């Protein structure tokens, strides 16, 4: 069979990935620069018996996908910063109520309504700490159109496996730029569905605390008749004020992710074996970093690259290992914001390693030359 090759936008790649992963419900609200995702899903979903709905705002969009997921559909929404701000209420609920959901944030410049058509990475920390209360967020960030497709599938898989909201962090440039993508054939990318209970209804606990912290999930209508609430609850879902049950619930929510960092966290490194300087960047900036590193190496400078693909949670142990690479003297953290992930790097580097911020927030991309200049300053 001939390969299915398309020239497509990052936002279209989200749609392709979502369809491959078995998306059956999308609730959204128009916002630049994410709108193409909603527009295309409005066309595609009903063709496969799925549902698209345009809600009255982003709060409702998030609420609708939680409801749909509880009723058994793989569910997603897509937005940008201002919409994400409204969704954090629902994201906290989905975390507490353990509802698989995927939120795509095509980042644009902020704060407030900011720069609707300009690139940014200034929602990096919001993806981690957006909602109130203690929680562990999962966020993935692609650097190309094809990787946007792959990570959309992965985001949906992680949501289903860990019963939690997962954010896909792209940006205006990734969302709108076009690249050649070979659409994977059926079965080429692993698709994971949520685990369903196989016990009789009277035994079923919707929030059971199991030894591996994974609990099977029934849907409304499956005959299990469970209760779901955002209030802190016991294993059956009923609100509790007992400190023992509160501790058990909140610990489970944490452990079910933190015990699986090896599965969840993807970090790409290149040339770190002999690197004196490392460039740490994610998403679209990682591409400029890659070129800068190649340019530096051509000039016989020992420079390596670190690219977090899973932005949240942080795999502290793995990062500490990477930052302990024996010749490493400095890490340049390049970000399209005023400095957000740099604090994560500072937290994890050995004392002798210098951390240097390279920030740009004038709505333009960081260029390879900018990064190369920074490398030269350090060397």
């Amino acid at each position, binding site marked *: 069979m001939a390969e299915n090759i398309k020239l497509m936008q990052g936002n279209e790649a989200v749609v392709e990935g979502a369809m491959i992963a078995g998306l059956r419900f999308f609730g959204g609200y128009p916002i630049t620069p994410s709108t193409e995702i909603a527009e295309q899903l409005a066309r595609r979903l009903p063709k496969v018996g799925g549902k698209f709905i345009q*809600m009255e705002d982003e709060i409702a969009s998030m*609420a609708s*996908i*939680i*409801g749909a997921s509880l009723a058994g559909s793989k569910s997603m929404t897509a937005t940008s910063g201002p919409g994400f701000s409204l969704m954090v*209420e*629902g994201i906290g*609920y989905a975390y507490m109520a353990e509802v698989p959901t995927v939120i795509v944030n095509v980042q644009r410049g902020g704060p407030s309504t900011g720069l609707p058509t300009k690139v940014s990475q200034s929602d990096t920390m919001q993806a981690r700490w957006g909602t109130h209360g203690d929680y562990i967020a999962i966020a993935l960030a692609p650097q190309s159109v094809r990787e946007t497709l792959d990570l959309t599938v992965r985001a949906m898989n992680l949501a289903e496996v860990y019963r939690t909201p997962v954010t896909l962090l792209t940006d205006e440039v990734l969302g709108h730029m076009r690249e050649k993508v070979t659409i994977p054939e059926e079965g080429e990318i692993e698709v994971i569905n949520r685990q369903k209970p196989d016990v009789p209804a009277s035994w079923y606990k919707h929030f059971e605390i199991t030894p591996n912290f994974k609990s099977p999930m029934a849907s*409304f209508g499956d005959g299990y008749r469970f209760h779901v609430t955002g209030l802190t609850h016991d294993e059956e879902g*009923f609100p509790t004020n007992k400190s023992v049950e509160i501790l058990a619930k909140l610990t489970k929510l944490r452990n079910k992710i933190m015990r699986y960092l090896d599965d969840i966290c993807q970090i790409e490194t290149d040339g770190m074996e002999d690197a004196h300087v490392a460039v740490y960047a994610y998403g679209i900036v990682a591409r400029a970093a890659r070129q800068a590193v190649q340019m530096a190496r051509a000039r016989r400078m020992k420079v390596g690259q670190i690219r977090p693909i899973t932005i949240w949670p942080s795999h502290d142990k793995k990062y500490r290992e990477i930052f302990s690479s024996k010749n490493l003297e400095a890490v340049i953290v390049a970000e399209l914001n005023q400095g957000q992930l740099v604090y994560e790097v500072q937290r994890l580097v050995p004392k002798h390693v210098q951390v240097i911020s390279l920030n740009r927030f004038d709505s333009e991309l960081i260029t390879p030359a900018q990064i190369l200049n920074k490398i030269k300053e350090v060397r």
Partner: protein
Amino acid sequence: MAQRSDVTHKYLRAKKKFPNVWCAGCGIGIVMGSLVRAIDRLELDRDNVTLVSGIGCSSRMPVYLDFNTLHTTHGRALAFATGVKLSNPKMHVIVITGDGDALAIGGNHFIHSCRRNMDITCILINNQIYGMTGGQFSPTTPTDSYAATAPYGNKEYPFDIPKLAMGAGASYVARGTVYHVTQLDQLIYDGIKKRGFSLVEAFSNCHTYFGRLNRLGDSVKMLEEMKKNALPLKAAAKMPPEKVQGKLLTGVFCDVEREEYCDRYDALIQSLQGK
């Protein structure tokens, strides 16, 4: 009456969740009874009933009932319910909400749910105040009434719930009270049966806050006042307007046929799939 409570007990999570959070004499329990009797009379399969609520005294109701139950964030019950219903259109989705939940923080979701006309039954328990947080004024607190945040009297004008729902396009709109239980049973029954968005306002008493702050007496006094002040729409139609003024109109305000959202969406799927 014994028969009535038997029906109620059939659907309670009696061993797990009682006693309930409501004050003695609260009207919310009466609405819960009406809802259960309506569901029982309709012989709905309880596995295919989902109760969705927001935040507030009334929104605590689903936890006591043995259905699929979803207690959400403040004001968002209808938005969650929209996702449940569209994802699984066979589900009977019933939303339990209050005046603050549905009309203040959830006002946007309320009007758009009316407009969208999904087959959801919204039971709005109107006690004219925020009970759970301690008696602050709500969008239905009458002008000049007292509330914890209106110590000099409420300067705002209240919503007329049926008018709001009709204006926004609901297919079925009715109002009953917790005094007129037989009528309320019937209104909720008809609301659930209606294909399309139904809004049933259940006028209730909060003697703990609204009653106390406005010197309206205890639960019994407030129920007696409901009895006196309620006026069926049919009777009102034959009366001169000055006699209708200030009365609490009850009954069915509108019952119109409009094609339901999920049916329309399903037809779209069928046509796209060439069936």
